[in-house]
């Protein structure tokens, strides 16, 4: 009897150990892929980084040097305007979904958001092209922003909803029991309590769209010159990487690598900020 039991335990222990190592191994594989990509980008890109990359405009073929100043400015403009549009809208929808969870209306909105998340970015770009670019008759930063805002909505909405749903209902009831209105208890109690999660949702949304190129092809289009006008076409980093990286010129390749490092650096910084504020604003109930 005893021996049988011991044998069983040995087998189970072996399985246990096996499972543990498989999990470790797969995790490591994942991590390795990320590290290799980062290493490759930095290896190629860091030598290309120099001051002129940040301060100069692109130069025509044949002239050495040149930078991505216009693309950085363009990206910043397009992404910030997109954030300005998407964050309030996304939070509002997130609140709606959290409040009305389980009701038919909320279910439908929730499915719509899921579908939106799955819509290919190129399609979003085309739709915005038809909606905005065509009527206005010109490619513009604004239309790029609208396209990116649509891309940003799903993560912002989902994060807001998830965060608010996790806040205990009793907190809102406590506010209501004090005679507060629904609006006040949401704005003054729920949102501040969930600010960490909502904020990280916004940042991840921004990180997600910062590297998008497809929707911008139809909208912001690209511009070899520096432009601050939101109603005019602007350049953007992903587009520079796309255009220059696929060009036959060595010089342009260098600029594309530099742009990649800037973009990746931007995303990494965003993630670090998210982690920092998440722990900072962590609210215990």
């Amino acid at each position, binding site marked *: 009897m005893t021996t049988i039991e011991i044998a069983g335990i040995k087998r189970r222990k072996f399985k246990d150990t096996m499972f543990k190592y498989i999990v470790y191994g797969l995790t490591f594989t994942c991590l390795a892929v990320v590290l290799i990509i980062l290493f490759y980008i930095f290896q190629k890109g860091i030598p290309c980084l120099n001051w002129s990359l940040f301060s100069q405009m692109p130069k025509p073929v044949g002239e050495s040097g040149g930078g991505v100043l216009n693309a950085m400015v363009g990206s910043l403009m397009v992404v910030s305007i997109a954030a300005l549009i998407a964050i309030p809208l996304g939070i509002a929808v997130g609140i709606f979904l959290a409040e009305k969870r389980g009701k038919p209306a909320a279910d439908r909105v929730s499915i719509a958001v899921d579908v939106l998340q799955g819509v290919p970015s190129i399609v979003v770009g085309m739709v915005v092209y038809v909606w905005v670019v065509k009527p206005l008759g010109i490619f513009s930063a604004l239309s790029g922003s609208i396209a990116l805002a649509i891309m940003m909505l799903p993560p912002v909405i989902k994060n807001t909803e998830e965060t608010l749903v996790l806040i205990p209902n009793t907190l809102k*009831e406590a*506010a209501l029991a*004090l005679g507060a209105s629904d609006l006040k208890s949401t704005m003054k109690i729920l949102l501040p*309590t969930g600010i960490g999660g909502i904020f990280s949702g916004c940042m991840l949304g921004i990180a997600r769209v910062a590297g998008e190129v497809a929707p911008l092809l139809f909208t912001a289009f690209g511009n070899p010159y520096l432009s601050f006008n939101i109603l005019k076409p602007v350049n953007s980093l992903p587009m520079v990487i796309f255009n220059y990286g696929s060009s036959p010129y060595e010089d342009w390749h260098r600029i594309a690598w530099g742009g990649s490092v800037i973009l990746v650096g931007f995303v990494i910084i965003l993630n670090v900020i998210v982690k920092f504020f998440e722990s900072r604003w962590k*609210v215990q109930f």
Partner: protein
Amino acid sequence: MEGTILRTENLCASFGTNQILKNINIDIPEKKVTAFMGPSGCGKTTFLRCINRMHELNPEATVQGKIRLHYEDVYQMDAMTLRRKVGMVFQRPNPFPTMSIYENVIAGFTLNGLKLKKAEKDAIVEDALRKVALWDEVKDKLNNRATSLSGGQQQRLCLARTVAMKPEVILLDEPTSALDPLSTAKIEDLLYELKGNYTLVIVTHNMQQAARISDMTAFFYLGELLEFDDTKKVFTNPKNEKTQNYITGRFG
């Protein structure tokens, strides 16, 4: 009845098709402690939540019959106004986690958009915290997060938050079920002291607690109010056999 503050007339409450309360008629006396006890699912918490209309937050909830606060039908009143008159303390301490201790006490005013001068706020906060015997423990750290307090302190803070609004009635939904015995004793002492100024209605699973702190005890069973009498009477000579079986632990 003389000195009645809350009266219900044939109150029925349901969730969807599930009727929770059946024809409750009760007169709750003013400035006394009234305890609701009964086995789980007997409707006592639902009844409590009907009084300040928290029950209706559930979309499936329906209510028939009347609840009168000083002869005024609460279902004709504005819910927000009602809830300022009828405060509530919950089962688990739920201070607002983003707010400081000070802000939590004054939260009832800020959430209702009532603007107060700093001195007035200070006075309200100190008064409320003194009433719940928390002042001495927190007076040097009023700007700390409320969640930094212990569970018992948090619950007293929640009581202070309610008391600060100067309600006429305070509803307590098993306020000590998440607390250790010492914190429980402190809360019970507080309720004993508060009853001169407020009408307290407490739901409790703990029979001894009902016995210790209440003047009147109501026994709920399967959505019906089986007995409502002086606590002493209920615990020494209950009229209803079911009450007797419940308080002697012979239920089943």
